[in-house]
């Protein structure tokens, strides 16, 4: 099996010039550096050989009103401008006093998850990553059906797209409390799966590769849908989910997980 490449700029799963650039390994651009505290500056002069990496708030790959009427501008303004920004600011504040710098965001999440005993930075780090992933999981004019290789893989692992869709919606509805629902590529089982997580947990901590993520915290939908979670979830599947982003992520994932059938010659 193979994915049909539309652009020749892909090589070994890494993109040349990404509009959607969610790599598995990337250094977050240090934009929006917080006011350096005297302590921070002291760190830099004393440990000139160590790099202090603070994290910045990345912007969604569309204007804040681009997802109307399915996700209002007001929601984006609050969700991204307040909640997401808060997580970034809180994380940066924590990192000033902590020895955990120099990591990529993905590394930081795994380290602070601490195998199930999360450190205080985990919540903020994971939520920063989760929300970046969430914005990039949506697009204006989204929804409809996946295509090409993604559709093939979904049909292989769920029997049909509508089976997958039902599984995803059911899983989201069955979530108790705050959390996320994911379409992940399981690295060990080498197949796609729907997974739900609580609070800030994301499948990266288990070494799986997320393909699509949906925020099920109430702040994600309450202004637009009040308590009608089912409508929110269905709207996400029908009108918001970016299969383009999913395709990009699957392509990259293939560099790390062998999805093909081994061609064992018959003697």
């Amino acid at each position: 099996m193979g994915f049909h490449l539309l652009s020749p700029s892909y090589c070994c799963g890494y993109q040349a010039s990404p509009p959607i650039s969610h790599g598995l390994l990337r250094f977050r651009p240090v934009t929006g550096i917080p006011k350096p505290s005297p302590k921070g500056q002291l760190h830099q002069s004393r440990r000139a050989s160590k790099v202090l990496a603070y994290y910045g708030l990345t912007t969604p790959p569309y204007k804040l009103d681009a997802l109307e009427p399915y996700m209002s501008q007001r929601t984006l303004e609050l969700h991204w401008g307040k909640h997401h920004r808060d997580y970034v600011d809180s994380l940066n504040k924590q990192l000033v006093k902590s020895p955990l710098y120099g990591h990529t965001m993905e590394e930081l999440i795994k380290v602070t998850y601490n195998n199930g005993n999360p450190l205080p930075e985990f919540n903020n780090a994971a939520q920063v990553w989760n929300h970046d992933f969430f914005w990039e999981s949506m697009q204006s004019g989204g929804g409809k059906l996946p295509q090409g290789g993604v559709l093939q893989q979904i049909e292989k692992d769920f029997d049909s797209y509508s089976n997958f869709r039902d599984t995803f919606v059911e899983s989201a509805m069955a979530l108790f409390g705050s959390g996320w629902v994911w379409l992940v590529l399981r690295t060990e089982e080498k197949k796609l799966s729907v997974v739900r997580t609580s609070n800030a947990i994301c499948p990266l901590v288990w070494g799986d590769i997320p393909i699509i993520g949906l925020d099920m915290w109430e702040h994600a939908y309450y202004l637009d849908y009040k308590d009608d979670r089912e409508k929110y979830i269905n709207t996400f599947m029908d009108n918001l989910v970016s299969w383009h982003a999913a395709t990009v992520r699957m392509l990259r994932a293939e560099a790390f997980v062998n999805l093909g059938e081994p061609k064992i010659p018959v003697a």
Partner: protein
Amino acid sequence: MALRAIAGKKTLTLGLVLGPRAAAGASAPRTGSGLRHARGLVTFSLPDLPYDYGALEPAISGEIMKLHHQKHHQTYITNFNKALEQLEEAMAKGDSSKVAHLQSAIKFNGGGHINHSIFWKNLKPLNEGGGEPPHSTLGWAIDTDFGSLDALVQKMNAEGAALQGSGWVWLALDKEMKKLKVETTANQDPLVTKGANLVPLLGIDVWEHAYYLQYKNARPEYLKNIWKIMNWKYASEVYEKEIA
């Protein structure tokens, strides 16, 4: 014990036991006790609020109160009843794995019903004495265990604001140690999950649905304002009954 709180003053020896109950007045409609009989299995129903939806303004908007009561609380009750029905079936069939599997739905939805039933009683409109600080026994206990009412409020607000995700923050009475405590629970876990001797005096819902439409992400603002409509009289009554 927490179920007693739902039933109000009616004495019930209610557990998740099957069989018709001749409990006094349990089938009476608008008692606010929230219990009904159906096919031998007790089902729960939505208790009335002791005030109008708009009566708690401006601390909590009428829109939130209406949604919170008619949608969220009702959903917990509906799903609680469903889960209990399934439990009855599974127990009758001796399906132990189904029985075990249902526990999380029962804890979540049952907890949601229990917690919200307490919550409605914890709030009181401004013009009916909401926000009036506690006196006598509870007041003294607060001073003893926390230093001052202010200190207690600060502590509860801090813990409520720091709670990750969804949950509740409680003023609890440890009835064995006869001490007051501040506790938090996650999701809809009832207070007893933090200790079998804990009795809830006051609970504050910090799920986002409790404040989002009005306060948006400013949970600390919501926590600051909710004290203005806190029903300390109820908390005192529960306290005095438990330590008597």
